[in-house]
């Protein structure tokens, strides 16, 4: 094994003692763990992993549907296993977190004015929640009909 540490750009080169030192503060890999806002940011970004997991499960479900009633019944049984329920509980929490943070971005993305006065933030975000409710209701109605 190579025990000698390779010289990095952080140490000044040998040919002159007046070479400027690079200012490169080392940031810990865990920089996001110790502040609520940073943690929230990383959790929000991680919600995308559960979005992808949902797509994978949906593709598997479509494949089961295509393979006939027995395959579909087997897949429904798998969805009842504790592991699948646990994954879906965590996914649901993350996806709702994504939805809320996404909807609440609307007031930052666009400044809506009514008669020259800026609308309060919750009035700009509110239509998102209305659409969310209506669309969720419509999907549930179509599936449960």
């Amino acid at each position, binding site marked *: 094994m190579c025990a000698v540490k390779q010289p990095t750009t952080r140490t000044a080169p040998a040919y002159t003692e007046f070479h400027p030192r690079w200012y490169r503060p080392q940031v810990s*890999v865990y920089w996001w763990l110790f502040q609520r806002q940073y943690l929230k940011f990383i959790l929000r970004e991680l919600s*995308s992993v559960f979005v992808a997991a949902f797509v994978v499960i949906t*593709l598997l479900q479509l494949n089961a549907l295509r393979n006939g009633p027995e395959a579909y019944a087997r897949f429904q049984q798998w*969805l009842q296993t504790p592991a699948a329920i646990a994954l879906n509980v965590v996914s649901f929490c993350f996806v709702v977190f994504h939805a809320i943070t996404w909807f609440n971005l609307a007031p930052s993305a666009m400044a809506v004015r009514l008669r020259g006065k800026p609308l309060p933030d919750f009035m700009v975000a509110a239509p998102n929640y209305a659409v969310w409710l209506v669309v969720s209701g419509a999907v549930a109605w179509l599936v449960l009909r």
Partner: protein
Amino acid sequence: MERQSNEAFFWTLFSAGGVIAAILIPVHIFLFGLAFPLGWLPAPSYEHMMALVRLPVVRIYLFVLCSLPLFHWAHRFRYTLFDGLQVKHLNEVIFTLCYGGAVVGTVLAGYLLWNMG
């Protein structure tokens, strides 16, 4: 002349996928992942599901529901690895894996829905 960046294109996919994911995925996970398996609501029959999936508009809906959120994931996950874990030297590999995964998922969704019968 400056080289044009593709960032706007990928950001548009990310943003469209974010809207789809926020509005549609919670109700899907609630119904198919929790309410039906746990017996909170009566699960739809195989026949009813097939009748729905046979409708072209439902197939287009499911294609969009699968594809755009994958591009949303690709963008976010790429930058999570980039910023969170600081693996900047693997940028090209991560880019290829993330967007490659999204393309593979999109092709699979298209294949499944096209051949649903």
